[in-house]
């Protein structure tokens, strides 16, 4: 398991209360956030089923067919993502579904990366891991998995296989960066890059996709990635909201998916 600091006295008080609050927000997630997004996805899926043509539906196979089977089980961070990358191929979906595929691949990459961080932490390769960081990585990994599932539900509804591989262009970049990570700070910086990339891509997607329901899905995820980034900045001792206007500078191009 992940090594945790012995906590100072103040945590004996705060931990319980914060845990209660966390349970409250988990209920909020179940009651509010998820139904809102699901309705948008369902609308998109319904359109996909009834209108298998035009920009909503792309033809052909889906890229990144490799399953991240090694995710979370390897002690070598670079090995996990590289395995997935070598099985990737250019995708042939078009229009909104291509954007969905790109988004899913970014989410898969994030899931893999956080899985690698947790694996490395468990193996003691990151030094002492504060409990808040462990909770962060575990929670964020789960949320990224949910994001990937949301995008894939639309892709599958359109009659295509789910995108289960990571963004193949980013994989070598992340692998190279992760190979240099030796502590929690390094892991947080890498995570910040991934979150910034995802948020920027979704912000760009809001203008790129055509279906209103697809816009809604992207819009329901971008703020969450931004929140991940804010907390990472806080963890790194940096100002958590550095920009009044978020940018699309770090957005991944569709060619990450289409090749």
């Amino acid at each position: 398991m992940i090594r945790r600091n012995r906590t100072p006295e103040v945590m004996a008080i705060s931990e319980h209360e914060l845990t209660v609050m966390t349970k409250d927000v988990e209920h909020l997630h179940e009651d509010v956030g998820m139904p809102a997004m699901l309705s948008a996805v369902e609308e998109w899926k319904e359109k996909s089923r009834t209108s298998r043509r035009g920009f909503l539906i792309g033809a052909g196979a889906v890229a990144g067919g490799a399953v991240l089977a090694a995710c979370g089980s390897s002690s070598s961070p670079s090995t996990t993502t590289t395995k997935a990358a070598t099985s990737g191929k250019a995708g042939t979906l078009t229009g909104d579904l291509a954007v969905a595929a790109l988004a899913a691949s970014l989410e898969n990459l994030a899931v893999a990366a956080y899985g690698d961080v947790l694996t490395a932490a468990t193996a003691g390769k990151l030094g002492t891991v504060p409990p808040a960081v462990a909770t962060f990585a575990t929670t964020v990994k789960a949320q990224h998995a949910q994001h990937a599932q949301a995008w894939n539900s639309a892709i599958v509804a359109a009659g295509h296989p789910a995108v289960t591989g990571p963004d193949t262009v980013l994989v070598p970049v992340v692998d190279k960066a992760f190979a240099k990570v030796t502590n929690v700070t390094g892991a947080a910086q890498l995570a910040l890059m991934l979150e910034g990339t995802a948020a920027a891509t979704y912000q760009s997607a809001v203008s790129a996709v055509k279906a209103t329901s697809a816009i809604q899905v992207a819009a329901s995820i971008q703020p969450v990635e931004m929140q991940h980034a804010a907390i990472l900045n806080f963890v790194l001792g940096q100002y958590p909201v550095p920009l009044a206007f978020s940018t699309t500078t770090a957005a991944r191009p569709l060619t990450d998916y289409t090749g």
Partner: protein
Amino acid sequence: MRGRLTYSRPPQDVQEHDIDTRALGDLMEASQDIHTDAMVDTGAALDEMVELGQEARARGSIDLDESREVAAQRSRMRTGAAFGGGILAAAGIAGALDALFASPAFASSATDVQILQTAASIEVLAAGTYKTALTLPFIGGASANGVVKAFATMTMQQHQQHLDAFNAAITGLGGKAQNNSDPTLAKVVAAAVPGLTGPGPVVALALELETGAAETYTVNVATLSNANAKKLTASIMGVEAQHASVLLAVQALLNANAPQLITLSPTNVANLPAAAGSVGFPTAFFPTSMARPASEGALS
């Protein structure tokens, strides 16, 4: 920065205001530099909108009644049906939405203006609320937590920048700038003011405003017709969500009677309780149940 920091056990008696204000100032200055770069993108979008607005004005005046109805219908459908009304309702409404969105471009621009005016009215209120909060001794005075004070100051400025940008977009589309507060939310703030006797209630009020703003913009990006208005809103919604995220974390630490942990230091993370690692992002998908109606802050 990597490799410089160590996560050794922090001191047990961290002082409540133990922050390096100079370092904090440097961080905020660095943020301003990044912000300047970000404004290049926003400025380009606004420039395009000015041109569009000039074209709209050349065609004549905007029918506010028509656009208000369009805005209200869109908002109801997006927040009430498409998001919360279930699959069947959403599917059945799709056709109606398509018809609505096929309205003349002129009406769409007017609707966009109303949506943007409501956004501006939220920003007016947010900036004003932070400004007022900063006059309180426990937020902006000598007894304030340094990070909370810095956050309130910076966030007030960011909301003012959002207001300026929304108003630039509004005038760019041929509408009138909105410099008044959202009337409904203003009542909420007014009702809360007598209870602002400590940091907790102020944070709770700010959180309500930030959440309302972020959720409103999350809806708006799917509702706005104008591409640049959509881009502008998309560039702000996540920032408001970040404000909410910080406030959630601050609120949790205040409720846990651990204000000394509200500090910007790379070593502080070692002190934070485990739950602090997830309290700032309670949902995997940003909700919209607190989104304000599209025309709530529109000018009549």
